[in-house]
């Protein structure tokens, strides 16, 4: 590879901004048990307290501390994003690369399955699955991963197919290198950009889906989630409660920041690995 990805990334302002933002959110989420001033599953003051020194964002309708809830909800979102992205990318890589290497009937089945998944509104399937099974976080993570792998598999397959014909891969093969060595040494490193890109994109979709599905009321209501917070706060949206500023806005902002940071990173990665899009490439016009 002729690109030094990390140095390129450090030069990219948009990417660095996204990275700083995500690291900040990540640290906050990891440290949630330490930072959170109250137990988010327990009554800590009377309901609808306005923000104060004791309760930074006030309390909700049953007297839970909103700031603590927010921290734990952020944790759920990030955990969900990482888990779904990891599983999805693993499925995508295994199916995509194996389809390219094995070919034939297997290749055809995998790819047509990917096409079919592309045409189905993912969320409807998830809603149906969640309605049948008990909607625990693990079940939803797996269900979401099962319907999101298709774009990754397609990308991996296309890239592996083109790598298979490269001279250095053939040379390695001719010198007697085993397939596993070629995979590990020559094919996997070349797939890294796709992997990085796919991971960030899927994490982004997963975070959004988690918030959206819990907003619709699919999640276990005792989980702390940005979507659940929003949907409860929406019930008290009437101006006379005046809770939208300290209850509704924080999860909305947190979710937006999380998704924005992932979006910025994925944009930067795309620009680094697609040299045709790079800025130092002067266009004729």
């Amino acid at each position: 590879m002729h690109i030094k990805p990390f140095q390129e990334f450090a030069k990219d302002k948009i990417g660095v901004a996204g990275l700083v933002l995500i690291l900040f959110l990540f640290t906050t989420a990891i440290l949630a048990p330490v930072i959170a001033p109250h137990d988010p599953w327990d009554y800590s003051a009377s309901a609808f307290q306005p923000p104060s020194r004791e309760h930074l964002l006030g309390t909700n309708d049953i007297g839970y501390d909103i700031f603590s809830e927010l921290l734990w909800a952020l944790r759920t979102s990030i955990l969900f994003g990482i888990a779904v992205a990891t599983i999805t990318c693993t499925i995508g890589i295994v199916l995509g690369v194996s389809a390219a290497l094995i070919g034939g009937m297997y290749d055809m089945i995998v790819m047509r399955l990917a096409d079919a998944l592309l045409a189905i509104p993912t969320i409807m399937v998830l809603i149906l699955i969640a309605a049948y099974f008990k909607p625990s976080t693990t079940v939803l993570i797996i269900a979401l991963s099962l319907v999101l792998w298709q774009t990754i598999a397609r990308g991996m397959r296309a890239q592996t197919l083109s790598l298979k014909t490269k001279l250095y891969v053939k040379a390695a093969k001719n010198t007697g290198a085993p397939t596993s060595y070629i995979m590990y040494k020559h094919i996997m490193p070349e797939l890294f950009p796709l992997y990085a890109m796919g991971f960030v994109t899927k994490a982004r979709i997963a975070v959004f889906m988690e918030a959206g599905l819990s907003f619709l009321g699919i999640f276990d209501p005792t989980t702390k989630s940005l979507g659940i917070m929003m949907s409860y706060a929406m019930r008290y949206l009437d101006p006379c409660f005046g809770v939208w500023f300290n209850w509704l806005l924080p999860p909305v902002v947190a979710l937006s920041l999380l998704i924005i940071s992932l979006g910025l990173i994925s944009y930067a990665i795309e620009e680094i690995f697609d040299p045709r899009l790079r800025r130092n490439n002067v266009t004729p016009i």
Partner: protein
Amino acid sequence: MRNRTMKMVVAYLLTIFILLFLNFLLPRLLPGDAILAMYSGHETLMTEEMYAELVRMHGLDLPLHEQFFIYLTELAHGDLGYSYICHASTADLIMGALPWTLLLVGTSFILSAVAGIVLGVESSWRRGGRFDKTLLTFMLLLDGIPSLAIGITSLTVFCLYFGWFPSTGAMTPYSGAEGIEYIKDVLWHLVLPLATLTLSMIPGDYLLIRNSMLLTIREPYVLTARAKGIKNRRIKYLHAARNAILPFATRIGIRIAYLITGALFIETIFAYPGLGLLTYHAISNRDLPLMQGILTVSVILVLLINIVVDLMYKKIDPRVGYAY
């Protein structure tokens, strides 16, 4: 070309198979009793004979393949099942909601596509300039704000704080308005959901077109057009953009699926009486037949759009016909 058609057909068949699996097989594979689920709350009143009669009435005593055949026949007749929560035919409920979703999604698709294409083309043409940089940053930020957040914020600000727009429904109930007044009323209710959905779609379209344009304007034929002294606007839209929108055209089917997802949240937020709100009610009441019906209709909708796009694609990009 035959190869391409084959691939299409196989993919569609698989889609339908997944759909049938979810709707027909999954409920039968899971533990639990369908009759008890349907009449939950009345189990104590049910006698042995009544239970047996209900099993017979619903055809649950038939072998699985006969049940499947009946399911397919009913589906072909447009019967999507019966909602035991709403006490109405699922097909009727869906048909009542579908027009509103189509109005919302269709209008939003056109608006966001036009805005995305125009902004993307102009932005790429002025690459690195102030206009491009500002717009790109703005779009990247907007792309990050989920439709959920845009919807909730605009609902709070424009409906509750300023009171400029209605916060629920697709028209004023019992207003008795007709003609122009009726259309005005519907449009007034449409403004916020439409704006939210469109705003959430524009960045994706914009970024796609901008990147594709950046590659297209480096093609030699664009340079030739410039050398011939053709006006910039003509080159931009008739020479470059025509080719740059190809990746956009390929993704129309996927975008429609996204739009339906987006509509789900936005209709819920604004209580807009489309498929999304119907789904929300189905979830909160655990109305399984209704959920299955909505899934069936939305999959068929997306498949139909995909077929149309596939058929049109040869017209848009004649190279496809030769390549296979």
